[in-house]
Protein backbone atom coordinates (compact mmCIF):
# COMPACT_ATOMS: atom_id res chain seq x y z
CA UNK A 1 0.00 0.00 0.00
CA UNK A 2 1.36 3.40 -0.84
CA UNK A 3 1.77 6.09 1.76
CA UNK A 4 -0.89 8.19 0.10
CA UNK A 5 -3.44 5.41 0.21
CA UNK A 6 -2.51 4.85 3.83
CA UNK A 7 -3.24 8.44 4.69
CA UNK A 8 -6.55 8.28 2.86
CA UNK A 9 -7.58 5.20 4.76
CA UNK A 10 -6.91 6.83 8.12
CA UNK A 11 -10.03 8.97 7.97
CA UNK A 12 -11.96 5.79 8.64
CA UNK A 13 -10.86 6.15 12.23
CA UNK A 14 -11.91 9.78 12.58
CA UNK A 15 -13.92 10.02 15.80
CA UNK A 16 -17.66 10.46 15.38
CA UNK A 17 -19.74 11.66 18.30
CA UNK A 18 -23.16 10.41 17.32
CA UNK A 19 -24.92 11.78 20.43
CA UNK A 20 -23.57 15.28 19.96
CA UNK A 21 -24.36 15.33 16.25
CA UNK A 22 -27.90 14.12 16.95
CA UNK A 23 -28.65 16.63 19.70
CA UNK A 24 -27.24 19.55 17.70
CA UNK A 25 -29.19 18.48 14.66
CA UNK A 26 -32.41 18.40 16.69
CA UNK A 27 -31.78 21.90 18.05
CA UNK A 28 -30.91 23.38 14.67
CA UNK A 29 -33.80 21.60 12.94
CA UNK A 30 -36.27 22.87 15.53
CA UNK A 31 -34.89 26.43 15.28
CA UNK A 32 -35.31 26.31 11.52
CA UNK A 33 -38.89 25.05 11.85
CA UNK A 34 -37.92 21.72 10.26
CA UNK A 35 -38.70 19.39 13.15
CA UNK A 36 -42.32 18.24 12.86
CA UNK A 37 -42.09 15.35 15.33
CA UNK A 38 -39.69 14.83 18.24
CA UNK A 39 -39.81 11.52 20.06
CA UNK A 40 -38.15 9.71 22.93
CA UNK A 41 -38.52 6.65 25.11
CA UNK A 42 -39.08 6.66 28.85
CA UNK A 43 -39.44 4.13 31.64
CA UNK A 44 -42.71 3.80 33.50
CA UNK A 45 -44.38 1.34 35.89
CA UNK A 46 -46.24 0.06 32.81
CA UNK A 47 -43.05 -0.64 30.90
CA UNK A 48 -41.21 1.50 28.41
CA UNK A 49 -43.26 4.23 26.74
CA UNK A 50 -42.59 6.02 23.48
CA UNK A 51 -43.80 9.62 23.44
CA UNK A 52 -43.96 11.82 20.36
CA UNK A 53 -44.65 15.55 20.28
CA UNK A 54 -45.27 18.04 17.48
CA UNK A 55 -45.06 21.84 17.82
CA UNK A 56 -48.78 21.66 18.63
CA UNK A 57 -48.60 19.10 21.41
CA UNK A 58 -48.52 15.45 22.34
CA UNK A 59 -49.44 13.37 19.29
CA UNK A 60 -48.64 9.81 20.37
CA UNK A 61 -47.96 7.62 23.39
CA UNK A 62 -47.15 3.97 22.70
CA UNK A 63 -46.67 1.04 25.03
CA UNK A 64 -43.68 -1.17 24.39
CA UNK A 65 -45.89 -3.94 22.91
CA UNK A 66 -46.19 -1.90 19.77
CA UNK A 67 -43.02 -2.26 17.68
CA UNK A 68 -41.21 1.06 17.62
CA UNK A 69 -40.62 1.05 13.88
CA UNK A 70 -44.33 0.52 13.20
CA UNK A 71 -45.27 3.40 15.47
CA UNK A 72 -42.73 5.70 13.85
CA UNK A 73 -43.62 4.62 10.32
CA UNK A 74 -47.27 5.38 10.97
CA UNK A 75 -46.34 8.82 12.28
CA UNK A 76 -44.18 9.44 9.22
CA UNK A 77 -47.03 8.50 6.90
CA UNK A 78 -49.85 10.23 8.71
CA UNK A 79 -48.21 13.29 10.27
CA UNK A 80 -44.77 14.01 8.80
CA UNK A 81 -41.53 12.16 8.01
CA UNK A 82 -39.56 15.10 9.44
CA UNK A 83 -38.98 13.25 12.65
CA UNK A 84 -36.00 13.00 14.99
CA UNK A 85 -35.20 11.28 18.26
CA UNK A 86 -34.97 14.40 20.42
CA UNK A 87 -35.38 13.66 24.13
CA UNK A 88 -34.97 17.30 25.18
CA UNK A 89 -38.05 18.28 23.16
CA UNK A 90 -40.15 15.75 25.05
CA UNK A 91 -38.93 16.71 28.54
CA UNK A 92 -42.10 18.51 29.58
CA UNK A 93 -44.48 15.66 28.87
CA UNK A 94 -42.10 13.03 30.23
CA UNK A 95 -41.82 14.95 33.50
CA UNK A 96 -45.60 15.12 33.74
CA UNK A 97 -45.92 11.40 33.20
CA UNK A 98 -43.32 10.67 35.86
CA UNK A 99 -45.25 12.84 38.34
CA UNK A 100 -48.52 11.16 37.39
CA UNK A 101 -47.13 7.73 38.12
CA UNK A 102 -45.71 9.03 41.41
CA UNK A 103 -49.16 10.29 42.57
CA UNK A 104 -47.94 13.87 42.35
CA UNK A 105 -50.09 14.92 39.40
CA UNK A 106 -53.76 14.40 38.49
CA UNK A 107 -53.98 16.16 35.14
CA UNK A 108 -51.71 16.98 32.23
CA UNK A 109 -50.77 20.47 31.08
CA UNK A 110 -49.19 19.44 27.77
CA UNK A 111 -51.66 20.15 24.97
CA UNK A 112 -52.83 17.30 22.79
CA UNK A 113 -52.28 17.26 19.01
CA UNK A 114 -55.31 15.41 17.61
CA UNK A 115 -53.92 14.93 14.09
CA UNK A 116 -54.13 11.12 14.32
CA UNK A 117 -57.78 11.13 15.41
CA UNK A 118 -60.49 11.73 12.82
CA UNK A 119 -64.27 11.93 12.67
CA UNK A 120 -66.43 10.25 15.30
CA UNK A 121 -63.36 9.02 17.19
CA UNK A 122 -62.33 12.61 17.71
CA UNK A 123 -65.63 13.36 19.46
CA UNK A 124 -65.34 10.27 21.62
CA UNK A 125 -61.73 10.87 22.65
CA UNK A 126 -62.12 14.56 23.35
CA UNK A 127 -65.05 13.70 25.62
CA UNK A 128 -62.84 11.07 27.26
CA UNK A 129 -60.11 13.65 27.78
CA UNK A 130 -62.55 15.55 30.05
CA UNK A 131 -63.23 12.63 32.41
CA UNK A 132 -61.48 13.64 35.64
CA UNK A 133 -58.80 11.71 37.48
CA UNK A 134 -60.19 9.02 39.74
CA UNK A 135 -63.62 8.92 38.06
CA UNK A 136 -65.00 6.45 35.54
CA UNK A 137 -67.62 6.54 32.83
CA UNK A 138 -69.17 4.17 30.27
CA UNK A 139 -68.81 3.49 26.54
CA UNK A 140 -72.42 4.56 26.08
CA UNK A 141 -71.84 7.87 27.87
CA UNK A 142 -68.88 8.60 25.58
CA UNK A 143 -70.93 7.69 22.50
CA UNK A 144 -73.65 10.05 23.71
CA UNK A 145 -71.15 12.83 24.35
CA UNK A 146 -69.90 12.37 20.78
CA UNK A 147 -73.46 12.77 19.49
CA UNK A 148 -74.53 9.15 18.78
CA UNK A 149 -75.91 7.43 21.90
CA UNK A 150 -76.41 4.14 20.06
CA UNK A 151 -72.91 3.99 18.61
CA UNK A 152 -71.34 2.60 21.75
CA UNK A 153 -69.55 -0.12 19.79
CA UNK A 154 -67.99 2.49 17.53
CA UNK A 155 -67.07 4.39 20.68
CA UNK A 156 -65.37 1.23 21.95
CA UNK A 157 -63.38 1.01 18.73
CA UNK A 158 -62.36 4.66 18.97
CA UNK A 159 -61.19 4.14 22.54
CA UNK A 160 -59.38 0.94 21.56
CA UNK A 161 -57.34 2.84 18.98
CA UNK A 162 -56.62 5.84 21.19
CA UNK A 163 -53.19 7.07 20.00
CA UNK A 164 -52.52 8.90 23.28
CA UNK A 165 -53.28 6.47 26.12
CA UNK A 166 -52.78 7.54 29.76
CA UNK A 167 -52.93 11.27 28.88
CA UNK A 168 -56.24 10.83 27.05
CA UNK A 169 -57.58 8.57 29.80
CA UNK A 170 -59.41 5.84 27.92
CA UNK A 171 -58.71 3.60 30.93
CA UNK A 172 -61.49 5.52 32.75
CA UNK A 173 -64.13 4.13 30.38
CA UNK A 174 -65.81 0.92 31.63
CA UNK A 175 -68.81 -1.26 30.80
CA UNK A 176 -72.15 -0.09 32.20
CA UNK A 177 -72.32 -3.22 34.35
CA UNK A 178 -69.03 -2.33 35.98
CA UNK A 179 -66.93 -4.75 33.90
CA UNK A 180 -63.52 -3.42 32.91
CA UNK A 181 -64.23 -3.61 29.16
CA UNK A 182 -61.17 -3.62 26.92
CA UNK A 183 -57.84 -1.86 26.72
CA UNK A 184 -55.40 -1.72 23.81
CA UNK A 185 -52.47 -1.91 26.21
CA UNK A 186 -53.93 -5.00 27.92
CA UNK A 187 -56.29 -5.25 30.89
CA UNK A 188 -53.40 -5.48 33.38
CA UNK A 189 -52.36 -1.98 32.47
CA UNK A 190 -55.94 -0.71 32.66
CA UNK A 191 -56.28 -2.24 36.13
CA UNK A 192 -52.94 -0.74 37.17
CA UNK A 193 -54.01 2.76 36.11
CA UNK A 194 -57.37 2.45 37.87
CA UNK A 195 -55.61 1.26 41.04
CA UNK A 196 -53.16 4.13 40.78
CA UNK A 197 -56.07 6.58 40.64
CA UNK A 198 -57.82 4.87 43.55
CA UNK A 199 -60.81 3.66 41.53
CA UNK A 200 -59.97 0.00 42.13
CA UNK A 201 -58.65 -1.21 45.45
CA UNK A 202 -54.94 -1.69 45.19
CA UNK A 203 -53.82 -5.28 45.56
CA UNK A 204 -50.18 -4.52 44.96
Amino acid sequence: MTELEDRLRQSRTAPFDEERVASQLAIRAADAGLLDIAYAQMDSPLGELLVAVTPRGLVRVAYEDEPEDEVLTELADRVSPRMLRAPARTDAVRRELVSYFAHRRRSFETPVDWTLVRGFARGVLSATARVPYGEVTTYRAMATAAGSPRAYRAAGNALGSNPIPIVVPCHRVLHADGGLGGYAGGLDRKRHLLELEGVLPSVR
Partner: protein
Amino acid sequence: MGVHLPPFQALVDAHAAELHRFLVASVGRDQAEDCLQETMLSALRAYPRLQHGDNLRAWLYTIAHRKATDAVRRIVRRPAPGDLAALPAAAEPSVPAHEAPDDGVWLAVGVLPAKQRAAVVHRFVLDLDYRSIAERMGTTEEAARQNVSAGLRRLRKEIDR
Protein backbone atom coordinates in the same frame (compact mmCIF):
# COMPACT_ATOMS: atom_id res chain seq x y z
CA MET B 1 -51.30 7.24 0.38
CA GLY B 2 -48.78 8.33 -2.21
CA VAL B 3 -45.10 8.54 -1.38
CA HIS B 4 -43.88 6.53 1.57
CA LEU B 5 -40.86 8.08 3.25
CA PRO B 6 -39.24 6.52 6.32
CA PRO B 7 -38.90 8.58 9.51
CA PHE B 8 -35.95 10.91 8.97
CA GLN B 9 -34.25 9.55 12.09
CA ALA B 10 -33.90 6.22 10.29
CA LEU B 11 -31.76 7.96 7.65
CA VAL B 12 -29.62 9.55 10.33
CA ASP B 13 -29.14 6.20 12.08
CA ALA B 14 -28.28 4.38 8.88
CA HIS B 15 -26.03 6.92 7.16
CA ALA B 16 -24.68 9.64 9.47
CA ALA B 17 -21.51 7.84 10.55
CA GLU B 18 -20.60 6.91 6.99
CA LEU B 19 -21.41 10.39 5.67
CA HIS B 20 -19.16 11.78 8.38
CA ARG B 21 -16.24 9.65 7.13
CA PHE B 22 -16.99 10.78 3.61
CA LEU B 23 -16.90 14.40 4.75
CA VAL B 24 -13.74 13.99 6.83
CA ALA B 25 -12.10 12.76 3.68
CA SER B 26 -13.58 15.54 1.58
CA VAL B 27 -13.11 18.59 3.78
CA GLY B 28 -10.99 17.55 6.77
CA ARG B 29 -11.86 16.78 10.34
CA ASP B 30 -12.43 20.36 11.49
CA GLN B 31 -15.11 21.02 8.92
CA ALA B 32 -16.66 17.58 8.65
CA GLU B 33 -19.12 17.82 11.50
CA ASP B 34 -20.42 21.19 10.42
CA CYS B 35 -20.78 19.93 6.85
CA LEU B 36 -22.69 16.95 8.17
CA GLN B 37 -25.11 19.24 10.04
CA GLU B 38 -25.59 21.33 6.91
CA THR B 39 -26.17 18.20 4.86
CA MET B 40 -28.78 16.86 7.27
CA LEU B 41 -30.57 20.19 7.55
CA SER B 42 -30.76 20.57 3.78
CA ALA B 43 -32.01 17.02 3.49
CA LEU B 44 -34.61 17.57 6.20
CA ARG B 45 -35.81 20.73 4.46
CA ALA B 46 -36.33 18.98 1.12
CA TYR B 47 -37.42 15.61 2.52
CA PRO B 48 -41.23 15.85 2.42
CA ARG B 49 -41.11 17.03 -1.18
CA LEU B 50 -39.23 13.96 -2.47
CA GLN B 51 -41.15 12.16 -5.19
CA HIS B 52 -40.05 8.71 -4.06
CA GLY B 53 -38.14 7.00 -1.28
CA ASP B 54 -35.75 5.03 -3.50
CA ASN B 55 -32.04 5.22 -2.92
CA LEU B 56 -32.10 7.80 -0.16
CA ARG B 57 -28.44 7.05 0.49
CA ALA B 58 -27.43 8.32 -2.95
CA TRP B 59 -29.63 11.37 -2.42
CA LEU B 60 -27.86 12.16 0.87
CA TYR B 61 -24.47 11.74 -0.81
CA THR B 62 -25.45 14.19 -3.52
CA ILE B 63 -26.24 16.78 -0.85
CA ALA B 64 -23.10 15.99 1.17
CA HIS B 65 -21.05 16.31 -1.99
CA ARG B 66 -22.49 19.77 -2.65
CA LYS B 67 -21.86 20.89 0.93
CA ALA B 68 -18.30 19.57 0.76
CA THR B 69 -17.68 21.44 -2.48
CA ASP B 70 -18.95 24.68 -0.92
CA ALA B 71 -16.77 24.16 2.14
CA VAL B 72 -13.67 23.42 0.08
CA ARG B 73 -14.26 26.57 -1.95
CA ARG B 74 -14.43 28.56 1.27
CA ILE B 75 -11.24 26.96 2.60
CA VAL B 76 -9.29 27.27 -0.62
CA ARG B 77 -10.29 30.90 -1.08
CA ARG B 78 -8.66 31.87 2.20
CA PRO B 79 -4.96 31.22 1.39
CA ALA B 80 -3.47 31.88 -2.03
CA PRO B 81 -6.35 30.85 -4.27
CA GLY B 82 -5.87 27.64 -6.18
CA ASP B 83 -2.39 27.12 -4.80
CA LEU B 84 -2.54 23.82 -3.04
CA ALA B 85 1.09 23.94 -2.00
CA ALA B 86 0.25 26.93 0.16
CA LEU B 87 -2.31 24.98 2.15
CA PRO B 88 -1.26 23.96 5.63
CA ALA B 89 0.46 20.60 5.81
CA ALA B 90 -0.38 19.76 2.22
CA ALA B 91 3.26 19.35 1.31
CA GLU B 92 4.36 17.59 4.46
CA PRO B 93 6.06 14.35 3.52
CA SER B 94 4.70 11.69 5.81
CA VAL B 95 2.40 11.00 8.72
CA PRO B 96 3.04 7.99 10.95
CA ALA B 97 0.15 5.58 10.67
CA HIS B 98 -0.86 5.88 14.31
CA GLU B 99 -1.37 9.63 14.13
CA ALA B 100 -4.60 11.37 13.29
CA PRO B 101 -4.91 12.15 9.59
CA ASP B 102 -3.70 15.61 8.69
CA ASP B 103 -6.11 17.83 6.88
CA GLY B 104 -3.68 18.55 4.07
CA VAL B 105 -4.37 15.43 2.13
CA TRP B 106 -8.10 16.00 2.56
CA LEU B 107 -7.91 19.51 1.24
CA ALA B 108 -6.14 18.10 -1.78
CA VAL B 109 -8.85 15.48 -2.16
CA GLY B 110 -11.39 18.26 -1.88
CA VAL B 111 -10.21 19.99 -5.01
CA LEU B 112 -10.15 16.89 -7.20
CA PRO B 113 -12.74 16.85 -9.96
CA ALA B 114 -16.03 15.70 -8.47
CA LYS B 115 -16.06 12.18 -9.92
CA GLN B 116 -12.47 11.45 -8.99
CA ARG B 117 -12.99 12.75 -5.49
CA ALA B 118 -16.12 10.67 -4.92
CA ALA B 119 -14.41 7.58 -6.32
CA VAL B 120 -11.28 8.03 -4.19
CA VAL B 121 -13.33 8.56 -1.05
CA HIS B 122 -15.54 5.57 -1.73
CA ARG B 123 -12.51 3.40 -2.38
CA PHE B 124 -10.23 4.34 0.49
CA VAL B 125 -12.48 5.86 3.13
CA LEU B 126 -15.58 3.73 2.81
CA ASP B 127 -13.49 0.74 1.67
CA LEU B 128 -15.82 -0.26 -1.16
CA ASP B 129 -14.85 -2.46 -4.06
CA TYR B 130 -15.13 -1.15 -7.62
CA ARG B 131 -18.44 -2.82 -8.29
CA SER B 132 -20.06 -1.08 -5.27
CA ILE B 133 -18.49 2.24 -6.20
CA ALA B 134 -19.92 1.89 -9.69
CA GLU B 135 -23.36 1.18 -8.23
CA ARG B 136 -23.27 4.15 -5.91
CA MET B 137 -22.02 6.53 -8.57
CA GLY B 138 -24.12 5.15 -11.38
CA THR B 139 -21.13 4.35 -13.60
CA THR B 140 -19.51 1.21 -14.96
CA GLU B 141 -16.98 -0.71 -12.92
CA GLU B 142 -14.31 0.26 -15.43
CA ALA B 143 -15.13 3.96 -15.07
CA ALA B 144 -14.98 3.64 -11.29
CA ARG B 145 -11.53 2.06 -11.56
CA GLN B 146 -10.34 4.82 -13.87
CA ASN B 147 -11.70 7.57 -11.63
CA VAL B 148 -9.86 6.12 -8.66
CA SER B 149 -6.54 5.79 -10.42
CA ALA B 150 -6.80 9.17 -12.12
CA GLY B 151 -7.69 10.68 -8.73
CA LEU B 152 -4.70 9.07 -7.05
CA ARG B 153 -2.33 10.18 -9.83
CA ARG B 154 -3.50 13.73 -9.56
CA LEU B 155 -3.38 13.66 -5.77
CA ARG B 156 0.23 12.48 -5.80
CA LYS B 157 1.12 15.31 -8.12
CA GLU B 158 -0.64 17.91 -5.97
CA ILE B 159 0.95 16.69 -2.76
CA ASP B 160 4.49 16.23 -4.11
CA ARG B 161 4.47 19.57 -5.80
